Protein backbone atom coordinates (compact mmCIF):
# COMPACT_ATOMS: atom_id res chain seq x y z
CA UNK A 1 0.00 0.00 0.00
CA UNK A 2 2.83 2.36 0.97
CA UNK A 3 4.72 1.53 -2.22
CA UNK A 4 1.61 2.25 -4.28
CA UNK A 5 1.23 5.61 -2.54
CA UNK A 6 4.87 6.52 -3.29
CA UNK A 7 4.48 5.48 -6.94
CA UNK A 8 1.25 7.50 -7.14
CA UNK A 9 3.01 10.55 -5.69
CA UNK A 10 5.80 10.27 -8.25
CA UNK A 11 3.31 9.86 -11.10
CA UNK A 12 1.52 12.99 -9.89
CA UNK A 13 4.83 14.88 -9.78
CA UNK A 14 5.60 13.74 -13.35
CA UNK A 15 2.15 14.90 -14.51
CA UNK A 16 2.32 18.27 -12.75
CA UNK A 17 5.91 18.91 -13.88
CA UNK A 18 5.09 18.03 -17.44
CA UNK A 19 1.99 20.24 -17.49
CA UNK A 20 3.70 23.18 -15.82
CA UNK A 21 6.79 22.65 -17.95
CA UNK A 22 4.75 22.67 -21.14
CA UNK A 23 2.89 25.80 -20.03
CA UNK A 24 6.18 27.46 -19.10
CA UNK A 25 7.61 26.55 -22.47
CA UNK A 26 4.57 27.93 -24.27
CA UNK A 27 4.65 31.12 -22.16
CA UNK A 28 8.36 31.72 -22.67
CA UNK A 29 7.94 31.21 -26.39
CA UNK A 30 5.30 33.93 -26.45
CA UNK A 31 7.30 36.30 -24.28
CA UNK A 32 10.20 36.09 -26.71
CA UNK A 33 10.50 39.34 -28.68
CA UNK A 34 10.55 37.57 -32.01
CA UNK A 35 7.34 35.56 -31.54
CA UNK A 36 5.17 35.81 -34.66
CA UNK A 37 8.06 36.71 -36.93
CA UNK A 38 8.36 34.18 -39.71
CA UNK A 39 10.90 33.43 -42.41
CA UNK A 40 8.22 34.50 -44.90
CA UNK A 41 8.64 38.08 -43.58
CA UNK A 42 11.97 38.23 -45.35
CA UNK A 43 10.62 36.74 -48.56
CA UNK A 44 10.28 39.66 -50.97
CA UNK A 45 8.34 37.49 -53.44
CA UNK A 46 5.33 37.23 -51.09
CA UNK A 47 2.63 39.88 -51.28
CA UNK A 48 1.41 41.79 -48.22
CA UNK A 49 -1.89 39.82 -48.34
CA UNK A 50 -0.04 36.50 -48.42
CA UNK A 51 2.07 37.52 -45.43
CA UNK A 52 -1.03 38.72 -43.57
CA UNK A 53 -2.73 35.37 -44.23
CA UNK A 54 0.29 33.51 -42.87
CA UNK A 55 0.28 35.69 -39.76
CA UNK A 56 -3.45 35.02 -39.19
CA UNK A 57 -2.51 31.39 -38.50
CA UNK A 58 -0.51 32.65 -35.52
CA UNK A 59 -3.36 34.77 -34.15
CA UNK A 60 -4.98 31.77 -32.43
CA UNK A 61 -1.73 31.03 -30.65
CA UNK A 62 -1.31 34.53 -29.17
CA UNK A 63 -3.18 33.84 -25.94
CA UNK A 64 -1.09 31.39 -23.92
CA UNK A 65 -3.91 30.01 -21.78
CA UNK A 66 -6.37 29.43 -24.62
CA UNK A 67 -3.63 27.95 -26.79
CA UNK A 68 -2.47 25.64 -24.02
CA UNK A 69 -6.06 24.63 -23.12
CA UNK A 70 -6.75 23.78 -26.75
CA UNK A 71 -3.44 21.94 -26.90
CA UNK A 72 -4.24 19.81 -23.83
CA UNK A 73 -7.70 18.99 -25.22
CA UNK A 74 -6.12 17.73 -28.43
CA UNK A 75 -3.44 15.88 -26.46
CA UNK A 76 -6.10 13.85 -24.63
CA UNK A 77 -7.28 12.67 -28.06
CA UNK A 78 -3.70 11.78 -29.02
CA UNK A 79 -3.30 14.76 -31.34
CA UNK A 80 0.03 16.54 -30.81
CA UNK A 81 -0.62 19.09 -33.52
CA UNK A 82 0.87 19.71 -36.93
CA UNK A 83 4.41 20.81 -37.73
CA UNK A 84 4.43 23.70 -40.20
CA UNK A 85 8.11 23.41 -41.02
CA UNK A 86 8.12 19.64 -41.54
CA UNK A 87 4.59 19.59 -43.00
CA UNK A 88 3.75 16.47 -41.03
CA UNK A 89 1.82 15.63 -37.83
CA UNK A 90 4.03 16.02 -34.75
CA UNK A 91 3.17 12.51 -33.49
CA UNK A 92 4.46 11.03 -36.75
CA UNK A 93 7.73 12.98 -36.44
CA UNK A 94 8.13 11.74 -32.88
CA UNK A 95 7.45 8.15 -33.90
CA UNK A 96 10.14 8.36 -36.59
CA UNK A 97 12.79 10.16 -34.58
CA UNK A 98 12.36 8.94 -31.00
CA UNK A 99 14.15 5.57 -31.52
CA UNK A 100 17.27 7.33 -32.85
CA UNK A 101 17.50 9.62 -29.80
CA UNK A 102 16.64 6.84 -27.34
CA UNK A 103 19.45 4.76 -28.84
CA UNK A 104 21.94 7.66 -28.71
CA UNK A 105 20.98 8.56 -25.13
CA UNK A 106 21.11 4.90 -24.01
CA UNK A 107 24.55 4.43 -25.58
CA UNK A 108 25.68 7.75 -24.11
CA UNK A 109 24.47 7.02 -20.58
CA UNK A 110 25.74 3.43 -20.56
CA UNK A 111 29.09 4.37 -22.12
CA UNK A 112 29.53 7.35 -19.82
CA UNK A 113 28.84 5.27 -16.73
CA UNK A 114 31.13 2.44 -17.83
CA UNK A 115 33.98 4.80 -18.59
CA UNK A 116 33.40 6.92 -15.48
CA UNK A 117 33.27 3.96 -13.10
CA UNK A 118 36.13 2.17 -14.86
CA UNK A 119 38.34 5.15 -14.05
CA UNK A 120 36.84 6.15 -10.69
CA UNK A 121 36.88 2.76 -8.92
CA UNK A 122 40.61 2.05 -9.40
CA UNK A 123 41.40 5.74 -8.71
CA UNK A 124 39.83 5.51 -5.25
CA UNK A 125 40.65 1.85 -4.62
CA UNK A 126 44.37 1.75 -5.37
CA UNK A 127 45.05 5.36 -4.33
CA UNK A 128 47.86 5.57 -6.91
CA UNK A 129 48.53 9.33 -7.34
CA UNK A 130 49.71 9.00 -10.95
CA UNK A 131 46.67 7.00 -11.99
CA UNK A 132 44.33 9.35 -10.11
CA UNK A 133 45.95 12.45 -11.63
CA UNK A 134 45.83 10.90 -15.12
CA UNK A 135 42.14 10.03 -14.81
CA UNK A 136 41.35 13.50 -13.45
CA UNK A 137 43.26 15.10 -16.32
CA UNK A 138 41.36 13.07 -18.95
CA UNK A 139 37.98 13.94 -17.41
CA UNK A 140 39.03 17.58 -17.01
CA UNK A 141 40.03 17.93 -20.66
CA UNK A 142 36.82 16.25 -21.89
CA UNK A 143 34.80 18.57 -19.65
CA UNK A 144 36.38 21.59 -21.36
CA UNK A 145 35.33 20.61 -24.90
CA UNK A 146 31.85 21.56 -26.18
CA UNK A 147 29.75 18.48 -27.00
CA UNK A 148 29.38 19.58 -30.63
CA UNK A 149 33.18 19.60 -31.00
CA UNK A 150 33.45 16.19 -29.33
CA UNK A 151 31.03 14.83 -31.95
CA UNK A 152 33.12 16.46 -34.69
CA UNK A 153 36.31 14.88 -33.36
CA UNK A 154 34.63 11.46 -33.49
CA UNK A 155 33.61 12.12 -37.08
CA UNK A 156 37.12 13.25 -38.01
CA UNK A 157 38.61 9.98 -36.71
CA UNK A 158 35.87 8.00 -38.45
CA UNK A 159 33.92 6.83 -35.36
CA UNK A 160 30.18 7.14 -34.73
CA UNK A 161 29.52 10.69 -33.50
CA UNK A 162 26.86 9.55 -31.03
CA UNK A 163 29.65 8.13 -28.84
CA UNK A 164 30.37 11.78 -27.99
CA UNK A 165 27.33 11.71 -25.64
CA UNK A 166 29.18 9.10 -23.55
CA UNK A 167 32.13 11.49 -23.26
CA UNK A 168 29.79 14.28 -22.12
CA UNK A 169 28.33 12.03 -19.40
CA UNK A 170 31.63 10.44 -18.33
CA UNK A 171 33.31 13.39 -16.48
CA UNK A 172 30.20 13.94 -14.32
CA UNK A 173 30.07 10.24 -13.38
CA UNK A 174 33.82 10.04 -12.81
CA UNK A 175 34.10 13.11 -10.59
CA UNK A 176 30.97 12.42 -8.55
CA UNK A 177 31.69 8.72 -8.00
CA UNK A 178 35.41 9.26 -7.29
CA UNK A 179 34.67 11.89 -4.61
CA UNK A 180 31.97 9.68 -3.13
CA UNK A 181 34.23 6.62 -3.13
CA UNK A 182 37.17 8.47 -1.60
CA UNK A 183 34.89 9.78 1.15
CA UNK A 184 33.35 6.37 1.78
CA UNK A 185 36.74 4.62 1.97
CA UNK A 186 37.65 6.89 4.91
CA UNK A 187 34.52 5.98 6.89
CA UNK A 188 35.14 4.18 10.22
CA UNK A 189 33.39 0.93 9.31
CA UNK A 190 35.45 0.62 6.11
CA UNK A 191 38.68 1.28 8.03
CA UNK A 192 37.63 -1.39 10.54
CA UNK A 193 36.96 -3.85 7.73
CA UNK A 194 40.38 -3.09 6.29
CA UNK A 195 42.02 -3.56 9.68
CA UNK A 196 40.33 -6.95 9.96
CA UNK A 197 42.04 -7.95 6.73
CA UNK A 198 38.99 -8.28 4.48
CA UNK A 199 39.73 -8.46 0.77
CA UNK A 200 39.39 -5.30 -1.35
CA UNK A 201 36.56 -6.84 -3.38
CA UNK A 202 34.62 -7.76 -0.25
CA UNK A 203 35.12 -4.30 1.26
CA UNK A 204 33.92 -2.72 -1.97
CA UNK A 205 30.91 -5.01 -2.39
CA UNK A 206 29.73 -5.12 1.22
CA UNK A 207 30.83 -1.91 2.85
CA UNK A 208 31.32 0.71 0.14
CA UNK A 209 28.76 -0.05 -2.56
CA UNK A 210 25.67 -0.04 -0.29
CA UNK A 211 26.71 3.38 1.03
CA UNK A 212 27.09 5.00 -2.35
CA UNK A 213 24.12 3.32 -4.07
CA UNK A 214 21.53 5.99 -3.27
CA UNK A 215 23.50 9.05 -4.44
CA UNK A 216 24.71 7.12 -7.49
CA UNK A 217 21.12 6.31 -8.43
CA UNK A 218 20.24 9.98 -8.05
CA UNK A 219 23.09 10.76 -10.42
CA UNK A 220 21.71 8.20 -12.88
CA UNK A 221 18.57 10.31 -13.29
CA UNK A 222 20.64 13.46 -13.80
CA UNK A 223 22.84 11.81 -16.44
CA UNK A 224 19.73 11.08 -18.54
CA UNK A 225 19.00 14.85 -18.60
CA UNK A 226 22.65 15.57 -19.47
CA UNK A 227 22.55 13.02 -22.29
CA UNK A 228 19.35 14.52 -23.73
CA UNK A 229 20.88 18.00 -23.68
CA UNK A 230 24.04 16.67 -25.37
CA UNK A 231 21.94 14.92 -28.01
CA UNK A 232 21.00 18.29 -29.58
CA UNK A 233 24.48 19.41 -30.75
CA UNK A 234 25.65 15.84 -31.36
CA UNK A 235 22.70 14.97 -33.60
CA UNK A 236 23.02 18.27 -35.46
CA UNK A 237 26.74 17.78 -36.13
CA UNK A 238 26.35 14.08 -37.04
CA UNK A 239 23.18 14.70 -39.07
CA UNK A 240 21.37 12.00 -37.06
CA UNK A 241 17.60 12.11 -37.54
CA UNK A 242 16.69 12.26 -33.84
CA UNK A 243 14.71 14.55 -31.53
CA UNK A 244 17.75 16.78 -30.90
CA UNK A 245 18.12 17.52 -34.58
CA UNK A 246 14.35 17.99 -34.81
CA UNK A 247 14.49 20.59 -31.99
CA UNK A 248 17.25 22.45 -33.80
CA UNK A 249 15.36 22.44 -37.08
CA UNK A 250 12.16 23.52 -35.31
CA UNK A 251 14.02 26.33 -33.56
CA UNK A 252 15.52 27.58 -36.82
CA UNK A 253 12.16 27.52 -38.58
CA UNK A 254 10.20 28.92 -35.59
CA UNK A 255 7.87 25.94 -35.41
CA UNK A 256 5.95 26.67 -32.16
CA UNK A 257 3.75 23.53 -31.86
CA UNK A 258 6.72 21.30 -32.49
CA UNK A 259 8.93 23.09 -29.96
CA UNK A 260 6.29 23.03 -27.21
CA UNK A 261 5.71 19.30 -27.77
CA UNK A 262 9.41 18.55 -27.80
CA UNK A 263 9.95 20.46 -24.56
CA UNK A 264 7.04 18.62 -22.98
CA UNK A 265 8.18 15.15 -24.07
CA UNK A 266 11.79 15.66 -22.99
CA UNK A 267 10.57 17.12 -19.66
CA UNK A 268 8.41 14.02 -19.07
CA UNK A 269 11.30 11.69 -19.89
CA UNK A 270 13.82 13.49 -17.66
CA UNK A 271 11.39 13.83 -14.73
CA UNK A 272 10.42 10.15 -15.11
CA UNK A 273 14.10 9.15 -15.09
CA UNK A 274 14.71 11.22 -11.94
CA UNK A 275 11.60 9.79 -10.23
CA UNK A 276 12.56 6.24 -11.17
CA UNK A 277 16.05 6.60 -9.72
CA UNK A 278 14.56 8.21 -6.60
CA UNK A 279 12.10 5.29 -6.24
CA UNK A 280 14.94 2.78 -6.45
CA UNK A 281 17.17 4.60 -3.95
CA UNK A 282 15.65 3.23 -0.68
CA UNK A 283 15.73 -0.33 -2.03
CA UNK A 284 19.37 0.00 -3.02
CA UNK A 285 20.51 1.52 0.26
CA UNK A 286 21.54 -0.78 3.08
CA UNK A 287 22.37 0.44 6.54
CA UNK A 288 25.85 -0.89 7.05
CA UNK A 289 26.88 0.93 10.18
Amino acid at each position, binding site marked *: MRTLRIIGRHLLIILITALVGGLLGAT*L*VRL*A*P*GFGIQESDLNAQLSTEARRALHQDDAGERNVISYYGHYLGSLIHGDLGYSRSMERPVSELFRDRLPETVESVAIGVAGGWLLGLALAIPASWKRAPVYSAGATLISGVVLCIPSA*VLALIFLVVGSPGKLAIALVVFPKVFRFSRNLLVKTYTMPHVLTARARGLSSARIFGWHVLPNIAAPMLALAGVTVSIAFAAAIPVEVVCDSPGLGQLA*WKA*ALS*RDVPLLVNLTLV*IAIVTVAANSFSELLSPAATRDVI
Partner: protein
Amino acid sequence: MSRTRWIATSVLIAVFVLALFASAFAPAPYAKQFRNDTDHPPSRQFPLGTDELGRDRLSRLLYGMRISLLLAPAAALISTALAALIGGAGAYIGGTWDRATSMLIDLFLSLPWLFLLLTLRALLPLDIPAVTSVVVTFALLGILGWAASARIVAASVRSIRTSEFLLQARAAGCKPFRLLLRHVLPNVKPILLAQFWISVPLFILTEANLGMLGLGVTEPLPSWGNLLRELENYTALRHSPWLWVPLLSLVMVVSLFQFALEAEERA
Protein backbone atom coordinates in the same frame (compact mmCIF):
# COMPACT_ATOMS: atom_id res chain seq x y z
CA MET B 1 46.91 30.82 -2.30
CA SER B 2 48.22 27.47 -3.56
CA ARG B 3 50.77 27.32 -6.36
CA THR B 4 48.37 25.72 -8.90
CA ARG B 5 45.73 28.29 -8.21
CA TRP B 6 48.24 31.11 -8.36
CA ILE B 7 49.53 29.99 -11.78
CA ALA B 8 46.01 29.36 -13.14
CA THR B 9 44.75 32.72 -11.88
CA SER B 10 47.80 34.58 -13.26
CA VAL B 11 47.42 33.06 -16.73
CA LEU B 12 43.67 33.75 -16.62
CA ILE B 13 44.32 37.39 -15.76
CA ALA B 14 46.81 37.59 -18.66
CA VAL B 15 44.19 36.12 -21.04
CA PHE B 16 41.57 38.57 -19.73
CA VAL B 17 43.93 41.50 -20.29
CA LEU B 18 44.77 40.25 -23.78
CA ALA B 19 41.07 39.93 -24.60
CA LEU B 20 40.08 43.21 -22.96
CA PHE B 21 42.66 45.13 -24.98
CA ALA B 22 42.01 43.12 -28.14
CA SER B 23 41.93 46.30 -30.20
CA ALA B 24 45.54 47.02 -29.18
CA PHE B 25 46.86 43.50 -29.75
CA ALA B 26 44.83 42.46 -32.81
CA PRO B 27 46.62 42.99 -36.15
CA ALA B 28 43.36 44.10 -37.83
CA PRO B 29 39.72 44.97 -37.02
CA TYR B 30 37.63 41.78 -36.64
CA ALA B 31 35.38 42.50 -39.63
CA LYS B 32 37.98 43.85 -42.03
CA GLN B 33 38.16 41.78 -45.20
CA PHE B 34 41.40 41.29 -47.10
CA ARG B 35 39.69 40.27 -50.32
CA ASN B 36 42.90 39.33 -52.10
CA ASP B 37 43.94 37.02 -49.26
CA THR B 38 40.96 34.77 -48.65
CA ASP B 39 41.69 31.40 -47.00
CA HIS B 40 45.30 32.51 -46.57
CA PRO B 41 47.59 30.17 -44.59
CA PRO B 42 49.47 31.57 -41.57
CA SER B 43 52.06 34.19 -42.46
CA ARG B 44 53.81 37.13 -40.82
CA GLN B 45 50.91 39.42 -41.74
CA PHE B 46 48.22 36.90 -40.70
CA PRO B 47 49.65 34.70 -37.89
CA LEU B 48 46.61 32.39 -37.93
CA GLY B 49 45.74 32.90 -41.57
CA THR B 50 42.49 34.35 -42.93
CA ASP B 51 39.01 32.87 -43.25
CA GLU B 52 36.99 32.41 -46.45
CA LEU B 53 35.96 36.09 -46.34
CA GLY B 54 39.56 37.23 -45.95
CA ARG B 55 39.23 38.24 -42.28
CA ASP B 56 42.26 37.87 -40.02
CA ARG B 57 41.69 34.83 -37.79
CA LEU B 58 43.92 35.99 -34.92
CA SER B 59 42.06 39.31 -34.68
CA ARG B 60 38.71 37.50 -34.71
CA LEU B 61 39.93 35.11 -32.00
CA LEU B 62 41.04 37.97 -29.74
CA TYR B 63 37.78 39.90 -30.20
CA GLY B 64 35.78 36.66 -29.81
CA MET B 65 37.56 35.92 -26.55
CA ARG B 66 36.74 39.42 -25.36
CA ILE B 67 33.02 38.89 -25.95
CA SER B 68 32.94 35.48 -24.26
CA LEU B 69 35.18 36.46 -21.35
CA LEU B 70 33.31 39.67 -20.59
CA LEU B 71 29.75 38.47 -21.05
CA ALA B 72 30.02 35.00 -19.48
CA PRO B 73 30.76 36.59 -16.06
CA ALA B 74 27.80 38.95 -16.63
CA ALA B 75 25.56 35.93 -17.29
CA ALA B 76 27.03 34.20 -14.22
CA LEU B 77 26.20 37.32 -12.19
CA ILE B 78 22.57 37.16 -13.33
CA SER B 79 22.26 33.45 -12.55
CA THR B 80 23.96 33.80 -9.15
CA ALA B 81 21.74 36.76 -8.26
CA LEU B 82 18.64 34.77 -9.24
CA ALA B 83 19.92 31.76 -7.27
CA ALA B 84 20.42 33.96 -4.20
CA LEU B 85 17.05 35.62 -4.64
CA ILE B 86 14.98 32.51 -5.27
CA GLY B 87 16.87 29.78 -3.41
CA GLY B 88 18.26 31.95 -0.63
CA ALA B 89 15.14 33.96 0.08
CA GLY B 90 12.88 30.88 0.01
CA ALA B 91 15.09 28.98 2.43
CA TYR B 92 15.46 32.02 4.71
CA ILE B 93 11.71 32.66 4.96
CA GLY B 94 11.09 28.92 5.36
CA GLY B 95 7.77 27.07 5.60
CA THR B 96 5.54 27.19 2.53
CA TRP B 97 7.90 29.57 0.71
CA ASP B 98 10.77 27.14 1.14
CA ARG B 99 8.68 24.24 -0.17
CA ALA B 100 7.43 26.32 -3.10
CA THR B 101 10.89 27.51 -4.10
CA SER B 102 12.28 23.97 -3.71
CA MET B 103 9.59 22.72 -6.07
CA LEU B 104 10.41 25.51 -8.51
CA ILE B 105 14.11 24.64 -8.37
CA ASP B 106 13.36 20.93 -8.93
CA LEU B 107 11.10 21.84 -11.83
CA PHE B 108 13.77 23.98 -13.46
CA LEU B 109 16.42 21.31 -12.90
CA SER B 110 14.20 18.68 -14.52
CA LEU B 111 13.29 20.83 -17.50
CA PRO B 112 15.40 20.42 -20.60
CA TRP B 113 16.75 23.96 -20.36
CA LEU B 114 18.89 23.62 -23.47
CA PHE B 115 15.69 22.99 -25.41
CA LEU B 116 14.14 26.12 -23.85
CA LEU B 117 17.29 28.09 -24.57
CA LEU B 118 17.30 26.91 -28.17
CA THR B 119 13.66 27.91 -28.51
CA LEU B 120 14.06 31.36 -27.02
CA ARG B 121 17.25 32.10 -28.89
CA ALA B 122 15.67 31.07 -32.17
CA LEU B 123 12.58 33.18 -31.60
CA LEU B 124 14.49 36.44 -31.57
CA PRO B 125 13.70 38.73 -34.48
CA LEU B 126 15.40 37.71 -37.70
CA ASP B 127 16.90 41.15 -38.23
CA ILE B 128 18.34 41.42 -34.71
CA PRO B 129 21.56 43.50 -34.59
CA ALA B 130 24.71 41.50 -33.81
CA VAL B 131 25.39 43.38 -30.55
CA THR B 132 21.84 42.72 -29.32
CA SER B 133 22.22 39.04 -30.18
CA VAL B 134 25.31 38.85 -27.96
CA VAL B 135 23.61 40.51 -25.01
CA VAL B 136 20.41 38.47 -25.39
CA THR B 137 22.30 35.17 -25.77
CA PHE B 138 24.24 35.65 -22.57
CA ALA B 139 21.24 37.15 -20.71
CA LEU B 140 19.22 34.03 -21.59
CA LEU B 141 22.06 31.84 -20.35
CA GLY B 142 21.99 33.71 -17.05
CA ILE B 143 18.21 33.67 -16.73
CA LEU B 144 17.87 29.94 -17.44
CA GLY B 145 20.97 28.70 -15.61
CA TRP B 146 20.19 29.61 -11.99
CA ALA B 147 18.56 26.41 -10.68
CA ALA B 148 21.62 24.30 -9.82
CA SER B 149 23.19 27.21 -7.92
CA ALA B 150 19.88 27.96 -6.18
CA ARG B 151 19.70 24.44 -4.76
CA ILE B 152 23.17 24.79 -3.21
CA VAL B 153 22.46 28.30 -1.90
CA ALA B 154 19.13 27.14 -0.42
CA ALA B 155 20.79 24.20 1.35
CA SER B 156 23.43 26.54 2.78
CA VAL B 157 20.86 29.12 3.97
CA ARG B 158 18.76 26.35 5.54
CA SER B 159 21.74 25.16 7.59
CA ILE B 160 22.55 28.74 8.67
CA ARG B 161 18.92 29.40 9.59
CA THR B 162 18.98 26.54 12.10
CA SER B 163 22.49 27.25 13.37
CA GLU B 164 23.30 28.09 16.99
CA PHE B 165 24.67 31.57 16.31
CA LEU B 166 21.56 32.62 14.41
CA LEU B 167 19.25 31.30 17.14
CA GLN B 168 21.26 33.25 19.69
CA ALA B 169 21.11 36.41 17.60
CA ARG B 170 17.35 35.96 17.22
CA ALA B 171 16.98 35.36 20.95
CA ALA B 172 18.95 38.58 21.56
CA GLY B 173 16.24 40.46 19.66
CA CYS B 174 17.92 40.88 16.28
CA LYS B 175 15.39 41.87 13.58
CA PRO B 176 14.94 39.55 10.54
CA PHE B 177 16.37 42.08 8.07
CA ARG B 178 19.42 42.68 10.25
CA LEU B 179 19.82 38.92 10.69
CA LEU B 180 19.84 38.57 6.92
CA LEU B 181 22.33 41.38 6.35
CA ARG B 182 24.72 40.78 9.24
CA HIS B 183 24.59 37.02 9.73
CA VAL B 184 23.16 35.14 6.76
CA LEU B 185 24.59 37.01 3.77
CA PRO B 186 28.23 37.11 4.98
CA ASN B 187 28.07 33.35 5.57
CA VAL B 188 26.52 32.61 2.17
CA LYS B 189 28.97 34.89 0.33
CA PRO B 190 31.66 32.20 -0.22
CA ILE B 191 29.00 29.82 -1.65
CA LEU B 192 27.70 32.55 -3.97
CA LEU B 193 31.24 33.39 -5.10
CA ALA B 194 31.99 29.72 -5.80
CA GLN B 195 28.74 29.36 -7.77
CA PHE B 196 29.60 32.48 -9.75
CA TRP B 197 33.03 31.15 -10.74
CA ILE B 198 31.65 27.69 -11.54
CA SER B 199 29.03 29.24 -13.84
CA VAL B 200 31.49 31.29 -15.92
CA PRO B 201 33.18 28.37 -17.80
CA LEU B 202 29.81 26.62 -18.03
CA PHE B 203 28.32 29.62 -19.87
CA ILE B 204 31.37 29.93 -22.12
CA LEU B 205 30.90 26.29 -23.15
CA THR B 206 27.12 26.66 -23.62
CA GLU B 207 27.65 29.69 -25.85
CA ALA B 208 30.21 27.67 -27.82
CA ASN B 209 27.65 24.90 -28.33
CA LEU B 210 24.96 27.42 -29.33
CA GLY B 211 27.40 29.14 -31.68
CA MET B 212 28.22 25.87 -33.39
CA LEU B 213 24.50 25.33 -33.92
CA GLY B 214 24.24 28.76 -35.52
CA LEU B 215 22.13 30.07 -32.63
CA GLY B 216 24.73 32.00 -30.69
CA VAL B 217 26.33 35.35 -31.41
CA THR B 218 25.53 36.46 -34.94
CA GLU B 219 28.03 37.49 -37.61
CA PRO B 220 30.03 39.61 -38.15
CA LEU B 221 30.73 39.71 -34.39
CA PRO B 222 33.10 36.92 -33.45
CA SER B 223 32.67 34.65 -30.42
CA TRP B 224 34.20 31.34 -29.48
CA GLY B 225 30.99 29.64 -30.62
CA ASN B 226 30.93 30.99 -34.15
CA LEU B 227 34.74 30.67 -34.51
CA LEU B 228 34.40 26.94 -33.80
CA ARG B 229 32.01 26.62 -36.73
CA GLU B 230 35.05 26.44 -39.00
CA LEU B 231 35.75 23.02 -37.50
CA GLU B 232 32.64 21.71 -39.26
CA ASN B 233 34.65 21.63 -42.47
CA TYR B 234 36.57 18.66 -41.12
CA THR B 235 38.19 17.70 -44.42
CA ALA B 236 40.04 21.05 -44.29
CA LEU B 237 41.24 20.34 -40.75
CA ARG B 238 43.75 17.77 -42.02
CA HIS B 239 45.48 20.35 -44.22
CA SER B 240 44.94 23.40 -41.99
CA PRO B 241 45.85 22.48 -38.41
CA TRP B 242 45.72 26.17 -37.37
CA LEU B 243 41.90 25.88 -37.53
CA TRP B 244 42.12 24.03 -34.21
CA VAL B 245 43.53 27.12 -32.42
CA PRO B 246 40.14 28.55 -31.28
CA LEU B 247 39.28 25.14 -29.76
CA LEU B 248 42.67 24.87 -28.06
CA SER B 249 42.34 28.36 -26.60
CA LEU B 250 38.82 27.53 -25.36
CA VAL B 251 40.03 24.29 -23.72
CA MET B 252 42.93 26.18 -22.17
CA VAL B 253 40.77 28.93 -20.67
CA VAL B 254 38.08 26.56 -19.35
CA SER B 255 40.83 24.31 -17.90
CA LEU B 256 42.38 27.33 -16.17
CA PHE B 257 39.02 28.06 -14.55
CA GLN B 258 38.86 24.42 -13.42
CA PHE B 259 42.37 24.51 -11.97
CA ALA B 260 41.65 27.74 -10.11
CA LEU B 261 38.37 26.36 -8.74
CA GLU B 262 39.76 22.94 -7.80
CA ALA B 263 42.64 24.49 -5.96
CA GLU B 264 40.13 26.66 -4.12
CA GLU B 265 38.06 23.58 -3.22
CA ARG B 266 41.15 21.79 -1.90
CA ALA B 267 42.07 24.85 0.14
